[in-house]
């Protein structure tokens, strides 16, 4: 022990710099994330809301807010809305991304202009979601360009009221989610596919395997960690769905609150200053996303170890 200290005196004296370099991150994290999180959890145990101009509470009520959230039924409805819209966007997204990534990485197919296609399909990911939703709102309005185009083409006689039906509004949100994320997922899956040993594909081809056999027998099994990563991070993102439905429906979650998501619900509680309920809802969201984050963490750790 002593001998090593003598041999590497410098090494020891630098240790403190490791801590010093971490100070900015952790002090900011503590003030702007950790303390707010703890105080959010703390509020979940209090009755505290605005009734007209009067502030009720804060009064300690134990778990009453949680009981209320679960028994009122809205939480369940909004969780269902959020998950339905996520699935409607995610299923086509993962299927299309798998297909495109398989084509882009296929050495026999040797597609040209892949750089161009990747650039184009990734682009919607960087677009301001609120502006994108506003754009869809105007394009799919009852007398908007999409309806005019459909009528010009003779596909419909009367304009389609996309946003007044549940399926229409949900489909628009799912479609925007799909457009914003399928390029990103394609690139992630490509990175995974390119990590697979080419010899495996060549051996399969020599053995006369069909493209589908190669895909289902080699690519898919080896892609499992990245598929898990893509799915869980997408679900975490899906649970945070806010900008698109909020702007598309002007915060109403219409029609009849069938596109109201969990974060829109939280946002409503924050703006109506119902802090007790907002706190309880945050705790529930934290528990769900926290559990999912542990899954992401495990995938990342496994990758780093290999």
């Amino acid at each position, binding site marked *: 022990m002593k001998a090593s200290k003598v041999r590497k005196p*410098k090494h020891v004296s*630098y240790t403190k*710099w*490791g*801590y*010093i*370099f971490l100070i*900015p*991150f*952790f002090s*900011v*994290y503590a003030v*702007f*994330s950790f*303390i*707010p*999180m*703890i*105080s*959010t959890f703390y509020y979940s145990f209090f009755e505290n809301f605005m009734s007209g101009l009067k502030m009720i509470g804060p009064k300690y009520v134990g778990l009453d807010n949680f009981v209320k959230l679960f028994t009122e039924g809205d939480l369940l409805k909004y969780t269902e809305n959020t998950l339905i819209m996520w699935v409607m966007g995610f299923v086509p997204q993962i299927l299309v991304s798998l297909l495109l990534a398989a*084509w882009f990485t296929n050495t*026999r197919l040797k*597609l040209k202009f892949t750089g161009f*296609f990747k*650039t*184009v399909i*990734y*682009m919607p990911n*960087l*677009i*301001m979601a*609120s*502006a994108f939703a*506003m754009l869809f709102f*105007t*394009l799919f309005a009852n007398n908007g*360009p999409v309806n005019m185009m459909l009528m*010009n083409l003779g596909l419909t006689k009367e304009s389609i009221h996309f946003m007044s039906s549940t399926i229409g509004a949900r489909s628009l949100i799912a479609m925007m989610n799909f457009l914003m994320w399928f390029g990103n997922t394609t*690139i*992630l899956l*490509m*990175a*995974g*596919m390119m990590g*697979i040993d080419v010899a495996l594909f060549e051996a399969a081809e020599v053995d006369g395997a069909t493209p589908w056999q190669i895909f289902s027998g080699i690519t898919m099994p*080896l892609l499992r960690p990245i598929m898990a990563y893509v799915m869980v991070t997408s679900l975490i993102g899906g649970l945070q769905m806010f900008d698109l439905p*909020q*702007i598309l429906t*002007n915060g109403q979650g219409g029609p009849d609150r069938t596109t109201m998501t969990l974060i829109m619900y939280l*946002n409503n509680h*924050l703006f109506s200053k119902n*802090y007790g309920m907002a706190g309880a809802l*945050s*705790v529930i*969201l*934290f528990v769900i*996303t926290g559990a999912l*984050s542990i899954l*992401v963490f495990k995938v*990342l750790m496994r990758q780093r170890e290999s």
Partner: protein
Amino acid sequence: MGKEIKESGSIHLRRFFCYIVLIFFAVISLFSFYLLLINATRAHVDIQRGFSLLPGKSFVRNFNNVWNNETILIVHGMVNSLFVSSLTVILSVYFSAMTAYGIHAYDFRFKKVIFDFILLIMTIPTQVSALGFVKLITFMHLKDTFVPLIIPAIAAPACFFFMKQYMESSLPMEIIEAARIDGSSEIHTFNTIIIPLLKPAIAVQAIFGFTSSWNNYFAPSLVLTKAQDKTLPLWIAYIRGADFTKFDMGQLYMMIAFSIFPVIVIYLILSKFIVQGVALGSVKG
């Protein structure tokens, strides 16, 4: 011989099919932005009258209408967004690099625990602490200022993770040792030697950091309430809430274009780095 011809024929057919599908997806990715671009150049009456795939002649008029609008301050919002996003990106990139360097270059007792902790909080959404965040900034008298939108960028776990990955792949410890022998202090080494070496990673994270701040709607909606402070997404929300029937649609499309096209232009210039960056920061199969 015959088999070979048949095979090459089938690969041509497959390739042709692939291109058709790829073109289809490229078109649906671009179509809404194309319509936006077209409608931003058309006059209100033309937009009401019918659909067109060709641009109109009212680009300058729509542009001036947005520029001179005294109730919906889109240009002011753009300046605010630019200010917030620029400072955010500088802080997040610099301090994420610093944090990653602290863990990468030094050996200390809680190194592994701290690294795991940052990885674990990386995917926890900021929305779950929104209530406490609003309470805190009200208590600190920071409401209606840009501070609560900028300072938290110092702790950016995803940016940190990217920087750490990059350092592991391309920052040899020998460089740091050499700087120490030359008598360079640790902070000085970081600022003058390490930061320049991280340029590729910084470029990628600068783009992602900038766009995510530029596009951010949730946090500013909790912090900013005054018209002169509003960032672009807040103006978009304002327009959505306004009475639609009285709107000049040409001007409206131009306002959306103001929020979307700056990012598209930056993207097209830097797309090569961005697409590579997405792949770099990912999990390998």
